[in-house]
């Protein structure tokens, strides 16, 4: 290496005073230099003072970096540098020059300042570029001096001149003398800068932490983050993403896309996106405990397709730092910074603050969510305590769970009284509108507590969650139905009143909080228990009402027929049969013409049987249309047929442990006969629309005025039923057949109606007795009762002088010729009028014309209307 060599320039002899002056200047410079703290002042001071003694153009200080064995400019003399305008200047002041080349090695290995003529060395291989650039701007020579720290070179002071020979011996010795102070000053500056940076970081973090300590909401956090991060120079943009509840995705939480406003639409789209954690980028950040620096292009090249990466590319962010936000051991999210460099300490400081704030906000949100849920449950419980019926309950449930919880009620099943079956209690059919047929089929099925899903739910403590997709995979048939709703999970919970399972509830939702589910279920359980109690109460009430009706009717009957009158032989036989059969449970068939007192006999049997403490239940098989008779007898479930809006208990059930009196059994439709037969055989009934059979212990008494054997022959009555009923027939004699009873009966009725009407009739005239005796009594005892009732009314004195025996008596004996040539209508008309007269104008009810004509009262009414039969016809013509 060739060093600068100059012919010795003549130097004047310096006086003592001059020397003293220089010495003092150096001393001052030394003192001043060591007290310099600001890096810009150092070179200025140095240049100015030295320049007052020696000539040079400019000077710079470079520092060594041992990790890569380079040196790089540190202090620049901007004011005097002749290369400032050079195109390479900006590049040069940031460049790192290798220590491994001859020029700088020569400097490193020389303790004294060493000078070079630029021309000689600048084009040597590996020589640093700055030599040539300076030469281009007129610099001729360079004086290099090592700056040492702890015995090791830390950098260099470069001094340049455009006048060869400027670096005199004296100059060199001055520089050599001042070099240690210069090194000390540079070290101080470095230390100072470090301290300053640390201070800056600290105060930044302190500010940030005091900002963030006040943060309670996401909005406040966003403000604090913004005000702090905007202080970071070089930060283009930032975004905080938060891990979603699903634990599998992240969504933008707080962000600032920087000064270039992005496409609004695109931003909206990104904001509402759930970015999967495992996208090859976010997972790397979340798994790394240090901040990572990402090069956008490289990650795109790597094949990562996340939409935000493309967005960054369009936004021209080149590199991004990604740091996980973590509180204790839980990852909360990621902080993304569009920045070129990572200051680990600072970023970690920022992130730990953000993490704590975020964790607090999330905890706050959870608390207020819990409070909301509690408030909601309170409302719900308030709503539900008002509920009395299923419809109200259903409305309340559907309203709240749908609105506030985005949850659908699929089904509530309630355990039946038998403790084994479960019946649908309520369900939201609209939920399965895409699969109504299937749903109807499945929901109607009465299941048992042993049904696998139900038994699991009932056995569980707090219910089960069935993932719809998984259940489908596992072949759960119900799950196909659930799937049609589009909701992800089926939450099934046991409904319990106290410790007792009362049913199951099935709710479809994507997510449900445990607290809510538990709360809602306990409320619903209570409501259902209440409704059940209410329904039971209503049923009891109804039963009481029905029983009450019977009681009234019975009292009425007793009042009408307090005694059976008749001492004749025929009746004695009847009494004997009654007393024989009463004590048994045998079915009795009471036969006899209309009005012979068949019901009276039935009651007599019941009242002398062991069942007498309970009410005898009576059904008039002729009184109801065929369509209703079955439900009357056997009861029905809710919804069993159109119009069956309530469950109804049948007469069979009502007559449990008692007697069922089936009057007019001959009129029972064939279908009902079949069912009746089954009940008699099985001793159990099944409600219409029900699946359950109910054991009953009923004693049957049937009655008819028809000849059942004829009906059997005609196919109108089942033979098997007939034999079942005809176990113990009792044939009641007609009044005609026991004339000896006419007088006692007449006396009995006269006495009764006199009492009721307040007459004082004591006797019956012989003429009347004679008339009564000679009448044929087609309506039997009942006809006689009505006749006498009417006659009593028309009798003023104390003797019944006259009875109004229907003229029909004569009509019967009418000349057949008179009957000829009449239309069917005429015959019908006159027969109805005649019957009405006989029944004293009574159309329907016991002893009424309808009964005699064996048609329903309504039918008779309409027939009379059609045939133009008015009161005048049957009251005035006699």
């Amino acid at each position, binding site marked *: 290496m060739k060093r600068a060599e100059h012919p010795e320039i003549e130097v004047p002899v310096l006086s003592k005073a001059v020397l003293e002056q220089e010495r003092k200047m150096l001393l001052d410079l030394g003192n001043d230099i060591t007290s310099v703290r600001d890096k810009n002042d150092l070179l200025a001071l140095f240049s100015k003072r030295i320049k007052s003694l020696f000539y040079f153009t400019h000077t710079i200080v470079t520092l060594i*970096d*041992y*990790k*890569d*064995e380079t040196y790089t400019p540190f202090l620049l003399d901007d004011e005097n540098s002749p290369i400032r305008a050079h195109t390479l200047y900006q590049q040069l002041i940031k460049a790192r020059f290798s220590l*491994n080349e001859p020029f700088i090695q020569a400097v490193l290995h020389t303790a004294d300042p060493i000078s070079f003529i630029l021309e000689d060395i600048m084009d040597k291989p590996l020589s640093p570029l700055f030599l040539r650039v300076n030469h281009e701007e007129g610099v001729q020579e360079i004086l290099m001096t090592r700056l040492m720290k702890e015995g090791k070179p830390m950098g260099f002071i470069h001094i340049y001149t455009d006048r060869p020979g400027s670096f005199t011996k004296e100059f060199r010795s001055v520089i050599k003398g001042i070099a240690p102070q210069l090194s000390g000053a540079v070290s101080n500056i470095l230390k100072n800068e470090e301290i300053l940076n640390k201070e800056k970081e600290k105060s930044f973090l302190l500010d940030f932490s005091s900002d963030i300590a006040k943060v309670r909401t996401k909005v406040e956090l966003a403000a604090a983050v913004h005000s702090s991060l905007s202080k970071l120079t070089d930060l283009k943009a930032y975004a905080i993403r938060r891990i979603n509840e699903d634990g599998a995705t992240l969504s933008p939480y707080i962000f600032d896309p920087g000064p270039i406003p992005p496409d609004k639409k695109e931003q909206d789209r990104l904001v509402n996106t759930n970015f999967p954690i495992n996208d090859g980028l976010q997972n*790397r950040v979340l*798994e*790394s*405990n*240090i*901040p*990572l*620096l*990402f*090069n956008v292009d*490289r990650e795109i090249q790597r094949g990562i397709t996340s939409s935000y990466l493309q967005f960054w590319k369009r936004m021209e962010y080149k590199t991004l*730092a990604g740091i996980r936000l973590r509180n204790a051991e839980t990852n909360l999210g990621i902080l993304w910074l569009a920045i070129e*460099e*990572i200051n*680990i*300490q600072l970023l970690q400081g920022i992130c730990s603050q953000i993490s704590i704030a975020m964790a607090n906000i999330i905890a706050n949100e959870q608390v207020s969510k819990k409070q909301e849920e509690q408030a909601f449950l309170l409302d719900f419980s308030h709503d539900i305590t008002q509920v009395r019926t299923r419809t109200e309950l259903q409305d309340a449930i559907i309203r709240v769970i749908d609105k506030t919880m985005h949850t659908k009620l699929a089904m509530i099943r309630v355990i039946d009284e038998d403790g084994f079956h479960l019946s649908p209690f309520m369900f939201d059919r609209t939920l399965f509108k895409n699969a109504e047929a299937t749903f109807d089929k499945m929901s109607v099925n009465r299941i048992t507590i042993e049904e696998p899903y139900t038994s699991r739910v009932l056995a569980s403590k707090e219910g089960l969650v069935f993932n719809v997709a998984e259940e489908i995979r596992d072949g759960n048939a119900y799950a196909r139905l659930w799937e049609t709703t589009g909701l992800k999970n089926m939450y099934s919970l046991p409904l319990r009143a106290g410790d007792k399972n009362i049913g199951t509830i099935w709710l479809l939702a994507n997510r449900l909080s445990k607290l809510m589910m538990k709360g809602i279920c306990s409320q619903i359980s209570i409501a259902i228990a209440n409704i059940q109690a209410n329904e039971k109460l209503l049923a009891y009430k109804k039963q009481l009402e029905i029983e009450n009706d019977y009681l009234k009717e019975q009292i009425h009957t007793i009042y009408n027929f307090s005694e059976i009158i008749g001492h004749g032989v025929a009746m004695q036989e009847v009494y004997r049969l009654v007393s024989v059969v009463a004590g048994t449970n045998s079915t009795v068939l009471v036969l006899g013409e209309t009005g012979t007192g068949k019901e009276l006999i039935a009651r007599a049997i019941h009242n002398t049987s062991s069942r007498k403490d309970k009410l005898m239940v009576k059904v008039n098989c002729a009184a109801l249309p065929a369509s209703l008779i079955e439900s009357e007898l056997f009861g029905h479930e809710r919804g069993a047929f159109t119009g069956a809006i309530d469950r109804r208990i049948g007469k069979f059930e009502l007559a449990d442990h008692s007697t069922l009196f089936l009057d007019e059994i001959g009129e029972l439709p064939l279908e009902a006969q079949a069912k009746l037969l089954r009940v008699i055989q099985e001793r159990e009934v099944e409600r219409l629309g029900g699946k359950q059979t109910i054991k009953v212990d009923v004693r049957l008494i049937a009655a008819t005025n028809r000849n059942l054997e004829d009906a059997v022959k005609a196919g109108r009555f089942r033979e098997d039923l007939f034999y079942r009923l005809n176990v113990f027939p009792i044939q009641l004699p007609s009044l005609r057949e026991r004339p000896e009873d006419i007088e006692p009966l007449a006396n009995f009725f006269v006495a009764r109606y006199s009492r009721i009407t307040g007459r004082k009739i004591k006797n019956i005239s012989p003429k009347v007795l004679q008339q009564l005796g000679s009448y044929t009594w087609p309506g039997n005892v009942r006809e006689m009762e009505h006749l006498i009732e009417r006659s009593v009314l028309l009798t003023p004195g104390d003797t019944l002088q006259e009875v109004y025996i229907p003229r029909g008596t004569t009509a019967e004996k009418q000349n057949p010729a008179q009957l000829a040539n009449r239309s069917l209508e005429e015959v019908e008309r006159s027969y109805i009028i005649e019957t009405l007269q006989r029944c004293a104008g009574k159309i329907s009810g016991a002893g009424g014309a309808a009964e005699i004509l064996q048609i329903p009262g309504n039918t008779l009414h309409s027939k009379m209307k059609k045939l133009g039969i008015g009161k005048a016809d049957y009251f005035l013509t006699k």
Partner: protein
Amino acid sequence: MKIVVIGGSGLIGTKVVAKLRARGHQVIAASPNTGINTITGEGLAEALTNTSVVIDLANSPSWEDKAVMEFFQTAGRNLLAAEINAGVKHHVALSIVGVLLMQDSGYMRAKKAQEDLIMQSGVPYTIIRSTQFMEFIKGIADQAAEGNVVHISDVQFQPIAAEDVATFVAEAALEPPIDGIKEIAGPGRFTMPEVVTRYLQSTNDPRKVVPNSHAQYYGAQITTTSLVPAGQARLGAINLETWLAGQLQHA
């Protein structure tokens, strides 16, 4: 080519850095001292920009079981994550011959963890498993000494000079990654008491070696042949005597 040597100020690191620089590569000697720390991540991202090869020659400051595991795991994770991000094309690491056979030792478990992280990282790699460095013999003697007696198990031993290790490492760094393991060892195989005795002799150390057959190494149970390569290995050029002679010169 830009090469970052993690632990570039260590025994092997210094030598590797010098060898690579001598071949004209841009080398960063990374260590906490130069502002690059694999545990805190400090300076790591910046150092790795535009880097082709990373050579990890760092060692844990503490050899306590838990600390050493923590060191190699944390450093490994951080370093590899940063390498992936920087697009580093080759990761070279120095491990130990017989590492899988000596899992009774906490240090070996940590080295295995380091190897596993590398193999799972997806970064192309070369793992060099070396036998003990000759420079390490003194340490072995010291930790096994009780007063004037040095208790050494008579296991087989094939130490290698740090200089040779550095040569092999530098070589591997300049070759394409093998995505596998390479073994290196010293040129001669001995028993450990032999080597330690020889070392103490040549350094005029008065302590006496007492061999035993416990097959113990740093308190861990090993086998007679755990410390020597089982199969093929590259052998160093410097034999024990040459190395000892060199040591005396330095001293």
